[in-house]
Structures are given as structure tokens and as C-alpha cells.
């Protein structure tokens, strides 16, 4: 691990004041769990007693035989009961998460917004074809500012698309992960896209557009990524052999995620499709001060190091 990463590891560790704050939340945590338990029991009893009577009423008095109604209503009721039961836990997690992320981001020189709404990044990432078309999106956890002197904007984004199959419509996740925009020190004019390797389908991507396939020398890099650019020389100017190695390293850092990168209008855009939520407290079952869930949450903030240090973005090097 690099020196910078070690330093950041210390930076994301909780300080004495934060630990004391988490300890002071112990009674709130227990109260949230208690409310959750009683609401869960209440909901289960309510569902188990009301649903058979409701189904009997539907069947005998209203003579409804449509399975969508018969199974749909209980499903909606179960979802409602689950949401009702989980609400105190969710509210407690959100309160803890917001404060911790805000404070630790502040140490890095970043500002944190829990619910940022539209950030403009979604549209930009769609324009450069780093994400596929979506019909709706939801942003959470935005970090903005300068990390190690590099202007940075990172947001967690969940994009969905509505698909119609016959009479049914369903929502399909097209992207769930992190969108990051960072300033890039080298000057460039065109657009270069580093996307995941699609094997035989590579030849058909961007066919007819102004992006041409760029074949690079590094076989490891070529095995993971495919590069398309409006300028063959500029693509190689940006993707030096050393930078290619760094991208491979970054990709191996996010083991189960797909990393895609674009150089566009002076910025380096990175889409990390993890297909799962980020910056969440997994559980509040244990006391927070020494909870692994809290450690996991703060460790996730090492992502800034992973990107800036791994890609060596602070240096304007020839390699």
C-alpha cells in the first residue's frame, strides 16, 4: 500500500470525539432496535390475522379470482409492514452515517451532501457513453472539493430503465455505483473512452460514430479494457504505458465492479459500477463504537486515495 494510502487509513479512523459520540448514541441505538422489534412483531401479527380475513372477504363477498389482486395486495401489505418496521433503524443509520461521512470528508477537504438530487454528472456520463440510457436516477452521498489538490466531485448513483415486455413493465438497474469527475492535469481536446472489454462485440461498438478503436500495446490492459477515441495520438498521449498499468491496478482494487473511464473536456470521468449500494451502515446490531459496520463505512472513504493515488493524478508526468 502506498504511503498516501497509509496516511488516509489514519485519516478515516475515528477520533476520540467521534468514538465518544457513538458511545453516547448507545441508548438511541437500543431504542431504535427495540422499536424495530416491537413494530416487526406488531406488523407480523397484523398481517397474519388480517390477511386471511381479507382474502376470504375477496373470495366470498367480492368474488375476486384474479391472482394479481389476490397475491398483489398481500405483497403490498407485506412491503408496507416491512417499511414501517424498519423506519426507526433506517432513520438512526442515516443520522449516524451523515455525521460521520460529513466529518471525515471534511478532513480530506471535501464537503458531503447526503441527498444531493440532480448533480449534472448523470447527464454528462450518459453523453460520453460511460453509462447506458436510463429513465430515472437517484443520487446519494455526494463529495465535492479538492482532494490532494485535485478538484473532485463524486456521487453514488442508482440508474434504472423501464422495460416493457408484453403487457408488463419492469424496472431494470442499468447502473449502481459511483460517478466521479476529477480534473486531469494534461491538456487534451478530443474524447477518449476506456470501457470494459466486450470480446467479439467490440467491433460493433460505436460503429459509424466519431470514436475509433485504439489498439494499445499492453496485453493485460487490452484483456480488461477497450479504448475508443476521437484522436488516436491523443489517446496514446493520455494512456501512457504507466497510466495503463495504473488503470489495471485501479480495476483490480474494485474486484467485483466494472470500471469505465473517459477523458472529456479536461476532466477524467470514472464510472464504477458496483451493482450494490455504497457508503451504508450494514447493521446496528453491535455497539457502534467498535462495530465492524462503522469501520467498513469509514474505510469506503479510501476510495479517494484509490483513485487519486493509484492513478497518480497529482503529478503531471510524461509517463
Amino acid at each position, binding site marked *: 500500500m502506498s504511503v498516501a494510502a497509509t496516511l488516509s487509513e489514519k485519516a478515516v479512523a475515528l477520533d476520540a470525539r467521534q468514538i465518544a459520540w457513538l458511545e453516547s448514541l448507545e441508548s438511541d441505538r437500543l431504542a431504535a432496535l427495540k422499536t424495530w422489534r416491537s413494530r416487526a412483531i406488531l406488523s407480523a401479527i397484523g398481517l397474519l390475522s388480517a390477511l386471511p380475513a381479507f382474502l376470504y372477504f375477496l373470495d366470498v363477498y367480492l368474488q375476486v379470482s384474479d391472482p394479481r389482486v389476490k397475491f398483489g395486495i398481500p405483497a403490498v401489505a407485506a412491503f408496507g409492514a416491512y417499511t414501517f418496521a424498519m423506519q426507526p433503524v433506517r432513520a438512526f443509520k442515516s443520522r449516524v452515517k451523515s455525521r460521520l461521512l460529513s466529518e471525515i470528508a471534511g478532513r480530506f477537504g471535501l464537503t458531503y451532501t447526503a441527498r444531493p438530487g440532480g448533480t449534472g454528472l448523470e447527464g454528462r456520463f450518459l453523453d460520453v457513453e460511460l453509462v447506458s440510457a436510463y429513465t430515472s436516477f437517484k443520487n446519494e452521498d455526494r463529495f465535492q472539493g479538492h482532494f490532494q489538490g485535485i478538484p473532485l466531485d463524486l456521487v453514488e448513483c442508482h440508474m434504472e430503465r423501464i422495460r416493457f415486455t408484453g403487457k408488463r413493465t419492469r424496472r431494470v438497474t442499468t447502473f449502481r455505483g459511483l460517478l466521479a469527475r476529477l480534473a486531469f492535469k494534461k491538456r487534451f481536446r478530443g474524447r477518449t473512452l476506456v470501457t470494459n472489454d466486450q470480446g467479439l462485440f467490440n467491433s460493433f461498438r460505436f460503429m459509424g460514430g466519431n470514436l475509433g478503436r485504439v489498439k494499445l500495446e499492453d496485453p493485460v490492459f487490452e484483456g480488461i479494457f477497450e479504448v475508443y477515441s476521437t484522436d488516436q*495520438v*491523443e489517446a*496514446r498521449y493520455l494512456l501512457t504505458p504507466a497510466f495503463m498499468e495504473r488503470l489495471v491496478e485501479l480495476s483490480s482494487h474494485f474486484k467485483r465492479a466494472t470500471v469505465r473511464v473517459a477523458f472529456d473536456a479536461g476532466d477524467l470521468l470514472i464510472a464504477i459500477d458496483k451493482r450494490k449500494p455504497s457508503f451504508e451502515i450494514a447493521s446496528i446490531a453491535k455497539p457502534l463504537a467498535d462495530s465492524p459496520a462503522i469501520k467498513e463505512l469509514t474505510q469506503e472513504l479510501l476510495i479517494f486515495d484509490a483513485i487519486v493515488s493509484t492513478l497518480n493524478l497529482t503529478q503531471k508526468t*510524461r509517463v
Partner: protein
Amino acid sequence: MAVALGELLAVGIPAAILFFLYVRLIQKRNAALGALSSIDVQLKQRRDLIPNILAIAKETMTREIELIERVTELRASAAAGANVKDPEMLKRYLDTEAEISSLMQGILASFENYPETRFIEAMTQAQQSYEEVEAHISAARRFYNASAEDLKNAVEIFPSSLIASFLKIRAMPFFEISEADRKPVSAAEFFAA
């Protein structure tokens, strides 16, 4: 009718294959020429920058006069360009440019031995521009080498090699680094001064 169709296929399929190979070969040659012209654009930018650096160097450096004169000489010969259809001439041209690159690195490195100079700011600025152009040359060289390798494979591998020899299409030389650049860097040389 069946015979006519058979004859048509017997002639048509080989002709289509030959045409396909011919098109691919010409595409590869044009790609290599295109890549070469992109190097040329960058080399011209560098040749335009060199006089500024040499002017500062002449004012400042007393021990590197030979080096400066050699770069001036090479720059003049490289400015004449090369006939891209003549691989030998093209190779000499690329070698000259590689030598300029190597000598210029020497001049820029030696400049640090003159910390008292009043041209520090101008030289630093020129050095930054020069390094950016060098990075673009390096990128253009990688693009050219990739295209030249594609062409070389097509020219040397059967069956396109037959068409290449018939059309007198020859492989283009690779842009290689100079002998000086191949030498390992000796830290002792830096401390010796």
C-alpha cells in the same frame, strides 16, 4: 446454368478474396502513412521550439557548445523531411529525429548545471512546452509503430505478401529509440559533476 454458376463461383470467390486482401493492404499502408504524418506534425512543432531553447542555451552554456551545434545541424537536415515511399530514407529521417531527441534531453539536463543564469524562467517555460511536445511525439510514435507493425505483418504473411510484392508495397521502418536512450542511466554520472 449449373455449370455457369459453378464457373462464376470458381472465378468470383478467389477474385473477391484477392480484392479483400488488396483493400486491407492498402488500408494498412494508408493507416501507417497517416500515423507517420501525425509524427511529422509533432516533430515540426518540436523543430519550431528548438531554436528558442538553443538561443537560451547559447547564451548560458559554455561547456555544451558542441552539443548545441550538433542539434542545429541535425535540425536543419531533419527540416528537409523524407520521402515516405523510400523506407531507407525514411529510416534515416526517423533516426535523425531520435538523435535530436536524445541530444535535446542532454541540453535540458545540462541546463541544471547553470543555476546562476538569468534565463531560468524562460528556460523552464520552454522546457515544459518541449516536454509536452515530446510526450505527443512519443504517443504519435506508438501509434505509428502499431500501424507499421500491422503493415509489416500484412506485407510479410502469406497470402497478402503475394499482393504486396506484386504491388511493390514495402514494410515501413519502426521508429526506434536512439542508442543513447538505450543505455542504462548511471547515477554516478550525475554526482560526478
